[in-house]
């Protein structure tokens, strides 16, 4: 690899730590996809009759930063709203504008599913992030959105359940199980969805039970490495610490040091340098 290539690779790797928590993301994805399926079904069946006159009125004034319907695979609703005008302020949008509008959107209590509905109402197949920003812009302009906020579908009870699911999922994946194992388990347990099998299996693992399917050794190894790296970063260590540890331990690179360091931390040991 060229010098530039090496610098870029290092730069990318040193910023991997910015990645969000996988267990939380996964739990959220499961929740979203359920609601997504449910609401999409409901919306498609009900159409404009359920959405009501207020929604159609709201859709009449189309977003100024979103393009009109493109006929693509968006979330089109059977609404009779007029076509969107050409975006007027699109080019002037900056990252600061986006951040401000997104904040307004979420602070008003709206969530992902609301954005899906708005996208349908506005006949746009734009990315949901754009829709959220447009909605936020309107809120800041003092407008009322055509739907009431449905803060992401998690009243407190759901959040508790989601947290429990996340913990179970972590147990499942940390043990080295993968999707293919979940498919097998779902078949064995007569569960319709392998995702449900993951959660059920994770809960069993948390209770100290063994599963009727064993993970592949290479997946176990990969899971252990991943857990070690997560532990390394969770303890406050950084890439530069890993570089230093690699030198101390004569390891080939920082990646190996992250794994070795994480494994020691998981074993309750301390490292020769502090984070």
């Amino acid at each position: 690899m060229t010098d530039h290539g090496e610098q870029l690779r290092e730069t990318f790797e040193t910023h991997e730590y910015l990645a969000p928590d996988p267990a939380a993301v996964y739990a959220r994805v499961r929740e979203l996809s359920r609601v997504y399926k449910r609401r999409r079904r409901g919306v498609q069946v009900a159409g404009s009759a359920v959405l009501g006159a207020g929604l159609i009125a709201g859709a009449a004034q189309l977003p100024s930063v979103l393009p009109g319907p493109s006929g693509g695979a968006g979330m089109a609703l059977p609404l009779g709203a007029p076509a969107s005008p050409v975006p007027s302020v699109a080019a002037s949008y900056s990252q600061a504008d986006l951040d401000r509008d997104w904040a307004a959107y979420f602070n008003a209590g709206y969530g992902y599913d609301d954005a899906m509905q708005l996208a349908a109402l506005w006949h746009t197949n734009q990315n949901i992030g754009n829709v959220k920003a447009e909605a936020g812009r309107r809120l800041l302009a003092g407008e009322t959105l055509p739907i009431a906020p449905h803060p992401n579908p998690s009243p407190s009870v759901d959040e508790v359940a989601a947290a429990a699911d996340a913990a179970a999922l972590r147990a499942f994946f940390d043990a080295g199980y993968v999707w293919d194992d979940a498919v097998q388990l779902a078949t064995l347990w007569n569960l319709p969805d392998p995702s449900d099998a993951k959660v059920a299996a994770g809960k069993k693992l948390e209770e100290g039970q063994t599963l009727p399917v064993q993970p592949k050794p290479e997946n176990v190894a990969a899971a252990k490495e991943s857990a070690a790296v997560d532990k390394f970063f969770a303890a406050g260590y950084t890439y530069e610490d890993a570089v230093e540890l690699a030198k101390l331990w004569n390891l080939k690179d920082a990646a190996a040091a992250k794994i070795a360091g994480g494994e020691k931390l998981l074993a309750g040991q301390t490292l020769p340098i502090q984070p």
Partner: protein
Amino acid sequence: MARLTSLLRYAVVLTGDRDLAQDIVQEVLARTHVRWGRISGSESPEAYVRRMVLNEYLSWRRTWAVRHVQPVGERLVDLDDARGPVGDHAQDVVDADELWRRLATLGRKQRAVLVLRYYEQLEDTAIAELLGCSPATVRSQASKALRTLRLSSERQERIHAEEKS
């Protein structure tokens, strides 16, 4: 979970932004979850999902053509020059942070090319297939991206020189 961890790291490297990475991955996975039966039957489901993340990133806010315009103030990226003859550890970290900031000034496609080439370590032909363009275009994009990182420095030095003169 290891796969998801890897996907999230890929997304954060690709986007350069933690929140955006999360938003994109959540959105992609929520969609894949709905039709996982079909995706899981593909030759490489993991590659399929990574490709979805890439496409999502490239289309994200495309119409707004948002660019992170960064002030030209400090010495810009010619990291080879910034380094001493022997690799200095602290300087490496500073360089990495600096380069990370500079990468935010690139267009999405250029950034994606660099990520695919140097992080994913893909060949240009594979990158071209992912991006739906020719290998020559990939090379051109990569070259422009690298040049942008360097030219910024030259431009700044020119500005400096002009101000001093």
